[in-house]
């Protein structure tokens, strides 16, 4: 079992203590030890077409058509190259040669078509692929995706494992049970899913089609890879500290300091492609007055959010798209910063202008005898809960009384859904690798703020169909300018995704696609 160690040397700081034993067995000891990754939420399935989200734990057997590099540029993946037709309706992908499924079958354009078709029929999230019309195979290694309308965000789907090919032969064999023994072309091969506790993989020895952004484009160095699902943060961290786990995915920020003291621990920190924001229920009379919205925005000091709620691991944001999403504009960000920098006096003045004054001396502004009392709906989430508490004290300073209503995420979504309007304000987050997220967030029919602005809607439509990257960026800049002026939402901050590794090196994380690459991972000497 320990024959094909591609990893050249052993690990002297092996915490198991085995390292102390004499030489020859050293390397084999270490190679037989799986690389253990601890994550919080267990993926429901490893069948990507059934899953609602991609996660490191179910994506490493798959391989995307394209990749982002560390600057957010598109580079090759399984497709050596791609092109989009002038009308934006046909995307053509040219596949690499000599790519093999784990079962040994070769990757062909036919297999690719089957995979995309399967995704488009089965996946619960098929909508993200946009208005796909049909898939056509033009030669054994060329596949074309036809759209009914131009759909620029398809690029971010193409860079996700969702459209990664799956082995058509295996699908034919297993059908719905594909998840029991999935086969694709990724660097790792499925071994076992212990429902409720772990998933284990072994390396794909034949792999040699790694993307250019990797040093090692061949088979991964590590032989075995295990994902362990542990919901409780404290226990996860303790496990990591003990050395049972080599990679901690999603380190709770309050633990970072604690973990820094451990030798051989490294952190990967990257800003998430998303942000936490406050949304107004614009049907509420008090929020229909933009002065009130602006006053509240000015009451906010984002510093403590980052310092306390994120323990310093994050960044304040003033514009709707953070730096990690294509379409982010420094100018908009700075404008917003200038407009909404914390200014309690100005905020109070604005409120007073809108008719909200503290007439009875209880510290809460009121208008027509009604105090400025706001119910903030937010889901269960430690960071949001802590932020909300800070927000509470900040709002209090300008005379707004914030009441928190914390619920399960599903209940919150239900509460915010169009058709119901039993809330004043909400605190939510989004996480999306494409600026099209603004379209989704501000869809005039479904948006939670009940915000309508035909100009914005037009712009966001345009953003979908503009294939030229520069032109597209301009569209989103304009859209964001409208948003910071109208202020249906108040962006708050973006969190840093923190990954801690121990005794290993070479973990690569790409914030633009939020994907991990473990091909380069080696045990540290």
């Amino acid at each position, binding site marked *: 079992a320990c024959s094909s160690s591609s990893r050249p040397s052993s690990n002297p700081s092996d915490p198991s203590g085995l390292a102390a034993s004499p030489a020859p067995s050293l390397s084999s000891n270490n190679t037989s030890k799986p690389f253990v990754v601890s994550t919080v939420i267990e993926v*429901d*399935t490893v069948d990507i077409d*059934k899953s*609602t*989200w991609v996660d490191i734990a179910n994506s490493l057997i798959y391989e995307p058509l394209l990749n982002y590099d560390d600057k957010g540029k598109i580079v090759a993946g399984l497709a050596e190259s791609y092109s989009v037709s002038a009308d934006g309706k046909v995307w053509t992908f040219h596949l690499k040669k000599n790519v093999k499924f784990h079962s040994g079958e070769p990757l062909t354009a036919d297999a690719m078509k089957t995979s995309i078709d399967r995704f488009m029929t089965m996946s*619960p*999230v098929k*909508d*993200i692929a946009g208005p796909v019309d049909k898939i056509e195979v033009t030669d054994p290694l060329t596949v074309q995706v036809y759209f009914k309308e131009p759909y620029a965000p398809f690029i971010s789907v193409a860079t996700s494992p969702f459209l990664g090919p799956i082995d058509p032969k295996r699908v034919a064999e297993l059908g*719905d049970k594909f998840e029991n023994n999935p086969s694709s072309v990724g660097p790792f091969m499925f071994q076992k899913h212990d*429902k*409720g*506790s*772990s998933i284990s993989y072994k390396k794909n020895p034949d792999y040699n089609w790694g993307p250019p952004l990797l040093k090692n484009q061949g088979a991964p160095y590590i032989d075995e890879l295990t994902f*362990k699902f*542990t*919901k*409780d943060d*404290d*226990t*996860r961290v*303790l*496990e990591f*500290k*003990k050395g*049972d786990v080599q990679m901690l995915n999603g380190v709770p920020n309050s633990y970072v300091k604690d973990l820094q003291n451990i030798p051989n621990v490294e952190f990967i920190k990257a800003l998430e492609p998303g942000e936490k924001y406050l949304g107004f229920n614009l049907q509420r009379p008090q929020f229909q007055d933009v002065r009130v919205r602006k006053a509240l925005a000015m009451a906010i000091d984002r510093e403590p959010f980052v310092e306390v709620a994120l323990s310093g691991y994050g960044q304040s944001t003033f514009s709707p798209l953070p730096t990690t999403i294509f379409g982010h504009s420094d100018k908009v960000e700075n404008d917003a910063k200038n407009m909404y920098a914390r200014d309690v006096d100005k905020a109070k003045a604005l409120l007073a202008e809108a008719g909200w004054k503290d007439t009875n001396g209880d510290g809460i502004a009121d208008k027509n005898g009604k105090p400025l009392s706001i119910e903030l709906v937010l889901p*269960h989430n430690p960071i949001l809960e802590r932020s909300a508490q800070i927000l509470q004290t900040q709002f209090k300073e300008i005379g707004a009384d914030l009441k928190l209503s914390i619920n*399960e*995420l*599903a*209940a*919150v*979504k*239900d*509460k915010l*859904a*169009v058709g119901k309007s039993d809330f004043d304000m909400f605190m939510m987050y*989004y*996480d*999306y690798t494409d600026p099209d997220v603004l379209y*989704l*967030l501000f*869809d005039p*029919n*479904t948006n939670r703020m009940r915000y309508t602005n035909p100009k914005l809607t037009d712009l966001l439509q345009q953003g979908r169909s503009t294939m030229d990257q520069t032109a597209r960026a301009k569209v989103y800049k304009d859209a964001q300018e409208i948003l910071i002026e109208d202020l249906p939402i108040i962006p708050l901050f973006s969190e840093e995704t923190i990954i801690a590794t121990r005794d290993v090196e070479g973990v690569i994380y790409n914030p633009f696609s939020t994907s991990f690459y473990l091909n380069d991972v080696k045990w540290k000497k």
Partner: protein
Amino acid sequence: MYLLKRLITLISTLFGVSIFIFLLVHLIPGDPAHYILGEFPTPEAIKQLNAKLGLDQPLLVQYLHYITELFHGNLGASLITGQSVWSLIADRFPITLQLAVYSTVVATIIGVLAGVIASVKPNSWMDRSIVLASLVGLSAPTFWVALLFIFVFSYKLSLFPISGYNGFQSLVLPSIVLGLAEAATIARVARTSMLDVLQQEYMRTAVAKGVHGYARIFQHALKNAMIPVVTLLGLQFGSLLAGAVVAEVIFSLKGIGNLMIDAISKRDIPIIQGLVFFVALMFALTNLLVDFIYRIFDPRINYE
């Protein structure tokens, strides 16, 4: 005859549970579609999904469907992953069951022993310390004790794995934590019950016969005193089978309790329904079992 009667009562209780839980679950706000369809579902997609899952039907129709399936032993399948509820239970229950068994064993041994020792010399130094210890044990929150134990035994001393399920050793610490908490209650009940039994006239008869002290306690008194202890053990065991939610969360054991919390947060209705039903069934079966165990201790109970 008795068994039949018990079974009929059991079925009617379960029937009640099924209605109760069905209504309860359908009152839960939050659409499973919101969970399944990710962050930005389109309204049409939600509608389609609900139609597919049968959630757009009138409640009564849904219930009838549910109850007929139930009659065929089918608890349904997860809305999200499509796994059958039975297979989920089959996955998770062994851990819960083991945890329940081990902690009950711990609780019984410690609790009964402490109770007996305390009762033999009431108001002695020994008795008082046991009573106080059990009161403290009763008053300390499990989650707190569990944290302390993890910190000390798993982290500082590295005696046990910190979390997750990895065979027997993973269950040692949670079993001890749960077992100790229960032992506190059992010790109290065992003590009271022993004190009561020791007061009984038949214990005087035993002395009058010339029976030795130990024989009196273990042959004459203990069996009598076990009756309330068994009741309590049964109740505790039944609750444990429902999953010791707190312990399962802290120790990250993928048992029934954890599954339940997950299912609730995902609004996975069939799982919630199936689990609660299963839990009630287990609870009722435990009670049935306890009834029969009674008989070992108390011949007065007559099952015809």
